[in-house]
Structures are given as C-alpha cells and as structure tokens.
C-alpha cells in the first residue's frame, strides 16, 4: 500500500491546530528557563517541532483531495476557520524556518537581550494569522502580534511613540475595513488597503520601520518584518473583492515606494537603515504584482513573496551576525571585514543577489514575472520597477564593498567561527540557489494558488496578452 494511500485513508491528525498551539505552549515553557542558554535551546526545540508540524500540514494539504488541510475547529463550527491551502502553505513553511533559524543563529553574547519566549509566542501568532481563513481572525492575530515589538521597546525604555502611532492606526483602519467589507465593499477595501500600506511600510507610512530597526533587537525586527503578513491580508481579503481602480492605485503606490526605497538604500550610511529600505523595496515589489490583478502578476508576486521572505531573512541574519561580532556597522567607509568574516561575506552576497533577483537565484523568477505582468498592464510602471531593481542591485554591491573591502582590521580578539551560523547561511544559500536553478515546482504551485484568488476576468486577460 502506498504511503499516500495510508495518509489519505487514515484519520487526519490536526496538524494545523498542533502547529498553532505548539509554540504558544512552548513559550510558557521557555519563560521558565533558568537562563538564556536554556531558553534558546528550548526555543530551538519548539521551533523544530513547529517546522515539522508545518511540513506535515503542507504534505497533508498536498495529498488531500481538495488540497486543504483543515483545523478541527472547522469541523466543529462548520466554518472555515484555520486551514493550510495552496496559498499559504509555502509561506507557513518559510515562516517556521525563519523562526527556527533566528534563535539558532543568535550568538551567546546577544542571548540575554533577545526574548526567546516572545519569539515563540510571536511565531504562534504569525502562523495563526497565516492560516486564518476569516478576515476578522487575520485582523485579530495581526493586531495582537504588534504587541510583541512594542513590549520589547518598552522593556528597553526606548521610544515607542512612532511605532505605537503607526500600529494603532494600522489596527484601527484594518478593523474598520474588515468590519465594513461585507456590506460596503469599496469603502472596506480602501480601508484594508490603507492598513496594508501602513503595516508594510509603504511611504509615507514607513518611518516606523526604520525606527523599529534602530531601537529593537535585530532578531525581533526580522521576525516582525520578513514574513510580510500584510501580503497575506492582501491576497486573502483584498484581491478577490477589491475594485480595479483601487488595485491600480495600490500598484502605483507600490512602484513609487520601490523606487523611493531603492534611492534611499543607496545613500545609507547605517547598516540597519540600509536593511530597512531593502525590506521596504522587496515588500513593495511583492505588492506590485498582487495589485496587477492578473493571474500572471499574482503568480509572480506569490513567488516573489517566498523568495523575498527567505532572502531578506538570510540577509538580515547575516548582518545581525556581523553586528554581533563587529559592533554597530557603518557604511560610510570601508570596513575590511572580508578577512575576518569570509563566510558572512559569502552569505551576504548570495542573499543580497537573491533579493534583487539575480539569475540563478530564487528571486529571479518571481521578479521576472512581476516585471512582465507590470509591463503588460502599465508599461511606465514596469520601467520604473526595473529601474528600482537595478538601483537595489547597485545598493547591495555598494554595501558589500563598504562592509567587506578595505584595509583588514586586526582586532585584539579574533571573532570566533560559529558553526551554527555557517549552517544557517548554508541552508539559506542552498534554498536560494537550488530554488533558482529549478524554480518550476515553486512557480507551478504559486500559479495554482494565484488561480484560486484571481478573478475570472483577470484570467482571460492573461490569455489575450500572451497569445501573439
């Protein structure tokens, strides 16, 4: 009997429920750890279990007849509450991976400053929002997830004003939109779109991102930013119902945001601010394709979402590792770090090139499809997006030279080689390169997911465009 037959005929395990509850319960266990080393070990164990459960959920959805792995709550309540389907399955996997690799790659000196319990609880909230099928549930968990960075800023006696302002605005606007959507689609869509713009950090709502990065721990920022949950809000809630004009406006907004972020990334002299604008640019590019509305654009965006999540996380973790060794990093001079941290230099290059969509990396395919879709729909926008991508490439290499070239430093204490970091970098590099060389499985799955959310008119428009 084939394994698949066994899985299909045997009672389904509640993978979704276990995946949500496991990190939540683990966060209590981690809270009572006697020191940060024990906390980190427990977090790694918990994250590994969550990743296994997420993988099992992915396999379960893949093998089930309707390609959905449902929560037990769905059966009890008779409503789609939580589920893993084609749309969110790879995102959940990538998110679980990021939440695993962040504590794995946390160096000993930084452990006391990073809240492992908060990380585990945050993982539960993010995963729950990503498996939620109801707009209200997505809004609820995304709202609660904002508390974790806020709490950290408070604990560090940092300024929470800017972050609070934006997150309160995001929560209020999002809830207003979600509540109005059933009865007033246009107004509800506009409000939800506004909430997405704030949470993603599209200018002029982006200052909270650089503020958070300058004040919170780098790990916390990565976990809050890189899964891009706002993109899920767009795909699950907005794209199926939003009017065309709104998607066009959002598309324009995202394109201008991408170019703006690219220009600012080039002139940065601080590593964290550089990462901030890199993130903003990637998030904007993901939204560009979503707002193109066509199935091709959605496919490109969903692919770009996966690649951006992985690549940004890899880049962020590499920069975090560099900071842990060499302190606050400036991009104003030439630091000469290549000889001290060659592995991190290689990790930086691979992740940065994946972010900008270099051929042979996972980011190339998604970007290429987004460019194609955008040029079809709005040629001027397409040209601006391509230019923005070129500028990001320049910014990435500029930052590389400023960090790793120059007279080698001779510190009195050599930074130790960390096997966990090397493992993390190798794992991310393998995903980014193998996914780039053989992207078709990912693209096919994203195309299938795009078909679920694309509107019928958009699908026929794609066929017209592509038939010479």
């Amino acid at each position: 009997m084939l394994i698949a037959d066994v899985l299909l005929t045997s009672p389904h395990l509640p993978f979704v429920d276990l995946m949500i509850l496991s990190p939540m319960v683990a966060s209590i266990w981690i809270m009572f750890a006697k020191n940060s080393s024990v906390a980190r070990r427990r977090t790694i164990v918990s994250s590994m279990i969550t990743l296994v459960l997420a993988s099992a959920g992915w396999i379960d959805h893949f093998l089930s007849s309707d390609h959905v792995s449902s929560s037990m709550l769905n059966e009890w309540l008779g409503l789609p509450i939580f589920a893993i389907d084609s749309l969110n399955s790879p995102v959940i996997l990538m998110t679980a991976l990021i939440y695993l690799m962040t504590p794995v790659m946390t160096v000993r000196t930084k452990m006391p400053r990073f809240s492992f319990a908060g990380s585990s609880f945050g993982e539960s909230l993010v995963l729950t929002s990503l498996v939620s099928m109801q707009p209200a549930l997505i809004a609820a968990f995304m709202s609660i997830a904002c508390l974790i960075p806020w709490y950290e800023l408070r604990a560090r006696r940092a300024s929470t004003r800017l972050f609070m302002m934006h997150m309160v605005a995001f929560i209020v606007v999002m809830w207003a939109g979600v509540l109005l959507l059933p009865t007033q689609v246009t107004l509800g869509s506009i409000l939800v779109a506004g909430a997405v713009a704030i949470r993603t950090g599209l200018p002029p709502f982006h200052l909270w991102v650089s503020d958070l990065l300058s004040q919170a721990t780098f790990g916390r920022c990565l976990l809050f930013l890189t899964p891009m949950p706002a993109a899920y809000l767009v795909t699950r809630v907005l794209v199926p119902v939003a009017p065309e004009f709104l998607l066009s406006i959002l598309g324009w907004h995202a394109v201008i945001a991408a170019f703006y972020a690219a220009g600012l990334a080039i002139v940065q002299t601080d590593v964290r601010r550089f990462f901030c604008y890199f993130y903003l640019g990637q998030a904007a590019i993901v939204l560009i394709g979503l707002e193109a509305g066509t199935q091709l654009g959605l496919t490109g965006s969903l692919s770009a979402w996966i690649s951006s999540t992985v690549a940004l996380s890899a880049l962020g973790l590499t920069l975090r590792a560099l900071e842990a060794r060499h302190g606050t990093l400036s991009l104003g001079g030439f630091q000469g770090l290549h000889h001290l941290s060659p592995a991190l230099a290689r990790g930086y290059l691979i992740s940065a090139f994946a972010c900008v969509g270099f051929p042979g990396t996972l980011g190339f395919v998604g970007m290429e499809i987004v460019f194609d879709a955008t040029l079809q729909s709005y040629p001027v926008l397409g040209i601006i997006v391509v230019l923005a991508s070129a500028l990001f490439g320049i910014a990435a290499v500029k930052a590389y030279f400023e960090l790793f070239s120059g007279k080698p430093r001779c510190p009195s204490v050599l930074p130790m080689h960390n096997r966990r970091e090397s493992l993390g970098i190798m794992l991310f590099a393998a995903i980014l390169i193998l996914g780039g060389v053989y992207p078709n499985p990912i693209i096919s799955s994203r195309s299938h997911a795009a078909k679920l959310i694309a509107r019928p008119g958009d699908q026929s428009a794609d066929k017209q465009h592509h038939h010479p």
Partner: protein
Amino acid sequence: MIDSLLVGLMLFLVGSPLLMMTVIGARLFLGRPDSEDNVGRLVLATIAISLAAALAIAGTMLWVGHGRFEISLGNWIDIPAVHFHLAVKLQLDTLSLTFAIMSLVLCGVIGRFAIKYLHREPGYHRFFFLYAMFTFGLMLTTLAGTIETLFAGWELVGVSSAFLVAFFDTRIMPAINGLRVWTVYRLADAAFLIAAVTLHHMEGGGDFSALSGTGVWPTGTSELAGWSAFGVGLLIVIAAAGKSALIPFSGWLPRAMEGPTPSSAIFYGALSVHLGIFLLLRIEPIIDQSVALQVLLIVLGLSTALVAEISGRVQADLKSALSFASLVQVGIIVTEVGFGFRIIALIHIVSHAFFRTLQLLRAPSLLQDYSRLENAIGGRLSSPYSSWFHRLPGGWGRWLYRFGLERGRLDDWLDVLVVGPFLRFFRRIDQFEQRLLARSHEKNKSAVPVRPLSASHQANALPLSQNRLAEVSAEPSPATTNSRSV
C-alpha cells in the same frame, strides 16, 4: 544521429564551464578550497573539453552543411494556465561558434597565464571562481537561442567582471572602481531587461527567431518593424553601449585596470568589451529595419573611437594606453556594424581580441624588458610614437591634451548630470527623515536613546569622488564598540 551528436557536444561545451564554476564555487563556499594544482588542472581540463567540443561542433556543421542548429533544453519556467514560459535554447551558427571558439581559446590562454601569475596570491580561489563564472556566462551568452538565456549569461559576465575589478579587496580604489563598473553594467542591463520583457510580451516568447528571423546568420529578417524595432533596438543598443564601454559609458574601462592582469586581458582585450558588439551583431536584422539605429551606431562608434584615440595618446601607463587603444578598435567595429558590415566586424573582433590579449598579457614583462634595456644602454629608448598634438596651431594642442588627460570628462558629466543630483536628492530626504525620527525620540523624554542615529550628517561628498576618498583615507579605522542596542 548528427543531431544527437551535436546535442551531446553542445552539452559538453556549456556543461564543462558550469562544472568548473560549481566545483570551485562549492568548495570555496564551504570554506574548503582545493589546492592550487588541482584548481589549475580543473580549469585547464574543462576549458580543453569545451574547446574540443566547440571545434568538433564546428567541424561537424561544416561537414554536414548545417548553417544553423538550435537545441531546446526545455522550459525553465512553464505556466500553462497563462501561457507563460521561459525556454532555454541554445543556438549554433557562424556568429555564436566563432565567438565561442575565440572565447575558449583566450580563456584557456588567460587561465594558463593566471595559474602561474597568481600563484600564492591570497585570492587565488576567488579569482578562479570568478573566472569560471565569467567563462560560463560567456558561453551562455554567445550560444543563447532566447533573449532570457542571453540575459542570464549577460548578468553572470557582468557580476564576475565587477568583482574581478574589485579583486584586491584590501585597497579602497579597486572597490570604488568595481562599484563604478557594476553601476554602469546594472543600469545598462536594466535597458536590456526591459527589451527582453517587451519582446517576450510582443512575441509570446523570447526566441531570437523574432529578433533575427529564421535565416542563417548573417542573413535574416526581423519580424519586428517600425517603432517596435526602433524601441527594442534602442534598448539593446544602450545595453551594448554599457557593456562595450561606448560613449557616454567609456569611463569604466580604464577603471577596470585595478583588477589583476589576467582579468584586464579579459576585459580590455578580448571578451567582455566585445560582448556588446556581439549582441549588436545578433540583433543586426532589427538594426537593418531602422535607419535611425544605424546612424546612432555610426555616431556612437566614431565618437567613441575619437575620444579614445585622444585619451590614449596622453596616458602615462601602459595598461591605460592599451585600454584606450582597445576602445578605439571597439568604436571602429561598432561603426562597421552600423554600416552593416557583419562579416568584417566579426573578423575584426577576432583579430583584435587575439592581438590585444597578447599585448596585455605581455605588458608587465615588457616593462621589465624596457627597464633592463635602458639600464644596459644607460639612457632612455627613443619612442617610435609621438603625439601629434604639439603640431596643432594655437591652443588646440593644449586643449586636446587636457581633454585626453581628463578622458573627455565623461565620468564628470555623468556625475554632474545624473549621479550627483540623484544622490543629493535622496540624501536630503534621508536627512529629513532622520530629523523626524530624532524629534519623535526627543518628545519621548523618558526613553533612553538605545542606538545612535546613523551619521548621515557627514560631508555630502559623492562617494566616488576624490575628496571623499581623501576623507576616508584620513579617517581612523572605525571603532568597533558593541553598542548595547545590538
């Protein structure tokens, strides 16, 4: 059976450099580089296999009388639902085979030279990884049958070139010049990408049959015409101008001398600088459809040759002089392409590539020979060359001399018109945002500043200018204090 033979040989032709890149790159990435001897053997073996395959293909095609042969390796991306696909196709014809054989011979020579030249150099493995990436990218570009395949190879050549310029990473100037090279490449590649996507959209695919027709090179008629041909052609001309250092992008070529001599030979003499012209020859049927494009190429070529001739006359070091001499020839070849002389242009490329590679590889030892001769005779050797500037009337000679010394001020004009305003604009925005952040922190008086705001109030000098360099040189090494925010 002949077709199967050609397919097999083609896989060796492209697969060998890919294998070289993968093996050297994987070991470098894992932090376990192989010995220099093994790397050298791998390099020579893979180049020899590729070259043998290329020669066998050429011989087979001549024997059978095939003028053109296309191999489809399937779809790299296939989305049937929206009829979107990116096909990987390789194309064998006179142009691609000639260029491939020339490239492999020169890569082999340069590789053999570099094995000894870079012996015990700290970045030995890094050099050969970049060299392998360059070779593979070059094979992919020259043999590409679709514009997307060509673009992938084009990008690999670009990134490896920029990092070879910045090879000596303990010094600042290679990094600055490498960044300049990368910037030009990246912006030119943006034009290429727009052309590729536009073509894909117009024709439903990126096959070169749409660009150059199904005829055998150098014959062929493009399916594009009118404004479509001009638009796509113009974008590709911009891409070619960036790669081949045509005006106004000529400034990067002398900067590339920062790299080691073998990489300089790759750039100036042989391969990288001719890649743009290769692309123009590939899209020649589109250029034929547009008189404006032909005129543009002729003007670009002649002006590049003129500026390079004047600049080359006043250079004080051998490598710079050779780089400008290369640029003169590149300008002339582009003019030939503009006039439609395809075969002449190809012959010119091949002969120029071999000659210039010889000159560049010989340059370091030539200087030593001159030095020994002059020591032996106790005086300077008379130069067979003399500048004709001093024969010009009035101040024209001095003006031309300054013009040449400043290399036509092309880089300065680009900085003044494009780079400077762009950087100033975004720096002002950045400073404005930082002020807003600072104000929001001030209002929260109970907060402790956890992390110092970035020092964007430094001098607003352009990062690539000389006064910025002076500041960087004068600055002490950055402090590596662990701030408590990290």
